[in-house]
């Protein structure tokens, strides 16, 4: 994934340790079962897979499997289970929380070759895909039938549906349409012991526990999805987009609250602050209002009459909050330009800073002005620049923390500021992640948001799916726990979690 600022971050060198005997034996078995060409063990080849979109965390896997068929996944997982070797699934590797970072001496199962569109059923509004299929392809498949796949992460041109399912990915339009979990109807899952189960299906509900609902967002810790059924939505009759410039962040945030309070549910309300606008201008010349301290990109969709009337109300709300410029997209090209500034904002920050670090936290939307002001104070105190680009409608912040990776300690300071912002989010009644997941990056912060009992209860699900703890270990949970262990009673075995000492 093109993410220039990030990949230039200083990174601890990975040891070129020779493969362990366990790893060598497993590689041999894998080659015999799924074929030579799909099993990589050459350190130079493995290097490509050391990290995902969060380049600060790097681990060299023992083995990389390039699955070309669902059965390759089944065989690989089963052989891992037999050998007691941990495995990590990887889609497109665009994750921003280190979820797809390998486990040293473990197996990385790369799913990006599983890219078949299995079926398109416009009558039932269902599309069935393999996990490596790119998010945007689903909409492309559905478009001839005037349908679309609603979840639209900014990375939609490159991220995979499997990765979306694992992270419960969101996007600009989830304010109105919901997240991945609201659009996934069924999945075929390879459980960590190699068994294959089918959760959900094509019908809207099924008797029994909603295991699919628990799987979505489980960050690869409950198994590997090898086939996914999503629902598509009817493309709306009318879409209208406006770009509004403000002289203060408070006015922009206040407008968001006023729109919601008026009973209007836009498809999207996105906000960018001055620094983010500067970066976007430098990168893609999106022509945002000059002198804006904050802009909102607001999109309404639905029946023409409804959009027209509500659009008028939205423009009024903005005016009442001293908007100094309101631009309305006249056609698809103008709309695309408005969105281009927003959707390229992460990468664009690379233009104004040698390196940057993206955080992802959520606050109740009514607290936007206070929390943004507090982020500003923290940034000033730390002498670090922070650009804000975010999903304002649902309070999902994405502070982009800028730093110079040639300065020793700068990466660490950026990370500390990011964590301080997450504390703010939790204190405001929010969450440490709205869409990027916990991964390896934020697992320590889970205890800030949840109690021991909360986390132990989540582990019950983990133990039902993955009693041996082989699926993406060392992610999501702050403290590794063996299944069967009584909560609160820690044993020496805890520290043997394969991903623990290896990451950093």
């Amino acid at each position: 994934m093109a993410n220039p600022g990030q990949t230039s971050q200083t990174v601890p060198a990975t040891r070129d340790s020779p493969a362990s005997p366990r790893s060598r034996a497993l590689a041999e078995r894998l080659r015999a079962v799924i074929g030579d060409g799909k099993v990589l063990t050459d350190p130079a080849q493995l290097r490509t897979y050391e990290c995902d979109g969060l380049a600060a965390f790097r681990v060299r896997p023992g083995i990389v499997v390039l699955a070309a068929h669902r059965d390759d996944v089944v065989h690989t997982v089963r052989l891992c289970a037999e050998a007691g070797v941990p495995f990590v699934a990887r889609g497109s590797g665009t994750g921003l929380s280190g979820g797809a970072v390998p486990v040293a001496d473990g197996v990385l199962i790369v799913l990006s070759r599983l890219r078949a569109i299995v079926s398109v059923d416009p009558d039932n509004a269902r599309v069935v895909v393999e996990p490596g299929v790119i998010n945007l392809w689903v909409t492309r498949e559905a478009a001839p039938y005037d349908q679309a796949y609603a979840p639209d992460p900014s990375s939609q041109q490159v991220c995979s549906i499997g990765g979306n399912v694992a992270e419960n990915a969101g996007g600009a339009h989830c304010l109105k349409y919901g997240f991945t979990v609201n659009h996934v109807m069924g999945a075929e899952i390879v459980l960590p012991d190699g068994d294959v189960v089918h959760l959900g299906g094509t019908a809207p509900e099924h008797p029994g526990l909603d295991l699919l609902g628990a799987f979505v967002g489980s960050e690869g810790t409950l198994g590997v999805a090898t086939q996914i059924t999503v629902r598509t939505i009817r493309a709306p009759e009318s879409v209208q987009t406006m770009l509004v410039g403000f002289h203060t962040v408070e006015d922009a945030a206040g407008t968001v609250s006023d729109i919601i309070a008026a009973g209007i549910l836009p498809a999207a309300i996105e906000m960018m602050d001055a620094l983010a606008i500067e970066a976007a201008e430098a990168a893609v010349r999106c022509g945002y209002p000059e002198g804006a301290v904050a802009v909102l990109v607001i999109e309404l969709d639905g029946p023409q009459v409804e959009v027209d009337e509500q659009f008028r109300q939205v423009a009024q709300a903005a005016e009442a909050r001293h908007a100094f410029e309101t631009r309305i997209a006249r056609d698809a090209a103008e709309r695309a330009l408005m969105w281009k500034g927003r959707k390229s904002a992460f990468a664009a920050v690379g233009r104004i800073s040698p390196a940057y670090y993206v955080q992802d936290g959520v606050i109740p939307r009514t607290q936007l002005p206070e929390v943004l002001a507090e982020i500003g104070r923290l940034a000033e105190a730390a002498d670090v620049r922070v650009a804000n680009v975010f999903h304002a409608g649902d309070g999902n912040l994405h502070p982009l923390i800028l730093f110079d990776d040639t300065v020793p300690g700068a990466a660490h300071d950026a990370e500390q500021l990011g964590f301080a912002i997450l504390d703010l989010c939790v204190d405001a009644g929010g969450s440490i992640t709205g869409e990027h997941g916990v991964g390896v990056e934020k697992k320590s912060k889970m205890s800030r948001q949840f109690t021991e009992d909360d986390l132990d209860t989540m582990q019950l699900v983990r133990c039902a799916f993955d009693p041996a703890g082989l699926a993406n270990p060392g992610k999501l949970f702050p403290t590794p726990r063996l299944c069967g262990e009584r909560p609160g009673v820690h044993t020496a075995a805890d520290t043997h979690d394969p991903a623990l000492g290896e990451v950093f």
Partner: protein
Amino acid sequence: MAAGKDARTGAVVAGAGPARTVRPTTAAEVADVLRDTSGTVVPVGSGTKTGWAAPATSCDLLLRTTGLDRVVEHAPGDLVVVAEAGVRLDTLQRQLAGHGQMLALDPPEPGATLGGVVGANASGPRRLRYGTVRDLLIGVTVVLADGRTAKSGGKVVKNVAGYDLGKLYTGAHGGLGVVVSTTWRLHPLPPAARAVVVPVPDAAEAGRLAALVARSTLTPTAVELRWEAGRAAGTGSELVVLFESIEESVRAQSRAAVALLGGGAEADAPPSWFGARPSGGLVLRLAFEPFALPRVLAALPEASSGTASACTGVAYAAVPHTTDLAALRAAIAPYDGSAVVLEAPDDVRQGLDHWGPVADSFGLMTRVKDQFDPGRRLSPGRLIGGL
């Protein structure tokens, strides 16, 4: 009171009734109850429909949640509400309406509690627009079988920190834990409504019309079909397309719907049958691929009555108690169809397969149940496969 069948608890238990009933008023008391007792426990809210589905195989203690009746927090600007499990949905809706908001769930059972709605995964016609419990419940606190209290989710709509256990508790009928508190995403109350009612001669035509609406750019909140008793399902039925939005929109859309459907009467409100559940004999909840609606209706026995959420693939049907459930389930299986028994006459209830066949995920489901409730003390036997 007659064993297991008093009017308020319904037929929640097979055979002997609960030995004891408790009505805690705080989450801490619920935790104490579970920690300090060891027998089987069945949570009930209002108990409006405890006669639905498989009865518990044992119930030493009936845990009535109606004492957990506080609306803890309503943040209108954030469109979020936190309320205890025993709060009645209708009470909550009245309170929210005062702020021009609603919890977009409309199961028709009067008096249903939030915990019961979660436990039974109850929904109504507006699921077409707003989804169901799994789409609206953003946080939940549960007391587990061993008395520990655990939350998942939170108070913000967007949140992917940790597993989303709210999904698991939804439809679990208390079998994984007792829900004590729920946090919901709210929606603005639409200011205007308009309904189009079309008579429909048969199931095939019902399917055709529903598909027309589904493929159009209309945005109805519900598309409901009702057919009456004594005829083949779908025959001589009525389809209502409900629009709820601003005045301009519902007027324009209902006019467009009349044109699209080739006729129909417009009204300011849906007909009185809208949202009601059928009753009598066996009451089934059917779920299937939406486009299979006419084929599913055709698989139902003659002399059924019911309603279908025509664009979502869900129907409720009252069928004769002699209906061959296995044959019906087999007939709708090609459409990913399932038929769950909600209600049955007492004398046939015991011998019924309420949930139908288990899928290949049943082993996993059993492991989840065993992790949460190793002693099988919570609502035993109520879930699929006797869990």
